[in-house]
């Protein structure tokens, strides 16, 4: 069974551009979570989608946005990129409404975004 898949694995953008990151959850999972892992900051919660709706977001500016599609895959969009947005962006999925930390939450390998 395929795990959580993220694309692309690496993305290089220039400051001011937009980046789109994609995540496909494990089949049957309806919740998708996005995290940012920036150097020295650990994993920081970005967004949580469940059943196509945004359920919660972390302390990030509005230029971080996303959506969840009917097939439960998700996109993370980062507009007006800044150098500080360079980080590893991780997606996780779980079967339904619940914390991302339960035993049924799985992470993808991440997308490394570099802003130059």
């Amino acid at each position: 069974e395929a795990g959580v898949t993220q694309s692309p694995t690496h993305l290089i953008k220039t400051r001011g551009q937009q980046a789109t990151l994609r995540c496909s959850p494990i089949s049957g999972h309806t919740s998708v979570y996005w995290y940012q892992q920036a150097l020295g900051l650990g994993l920081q919660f970005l967004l949580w989608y469940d059943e196509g709706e945004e359920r919660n977001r972390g302390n990030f500016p509005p230029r971080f946005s996303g959506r969840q599609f009917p097939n439960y895959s998700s996109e993370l969009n980062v507009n007006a990129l800044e150098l500080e947005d360079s980080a590893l962006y991780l997606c996780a999925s779980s079967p339904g409404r619940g914390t991302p930390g339960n035993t049924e939450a799985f992470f993808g390998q991440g997308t490394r975004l570099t802003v130059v």
Partner: protein
Amino acid sequence: DQQVKQNSPSLSVQEGRISILNCDYTNSMFDYFLWYKKYPAEGPTFLISISSIKDKNEDGRFTVFLNKSAKHLSLHIVPSQPGDSAVYFCAAGEMNRDDKIIFGKGTRLHILP
């Protein structure tokens, strides 16, 4: 304001010995705690969790201890194996809230041969 702190950025332990990774938290509302393990170029994987109604949870070589009064938890790995070399993230949240959990910055564990 760091609500979940892992004060040791790295730790080296001899193979076969005990690895102890520590984590402190400040938010007294946290009642659910987790440890994740992350290898390079991979996403974090769930390792073990504990709720605040317990003070210990064991799963094979991994044991998590929770000291609520000190707002401290620790992960013990006994015995340490080379495959345990990874970054370990401590995380905390509230069980009755379906939203975000807070992660620490991680501790890099290096198991020495």
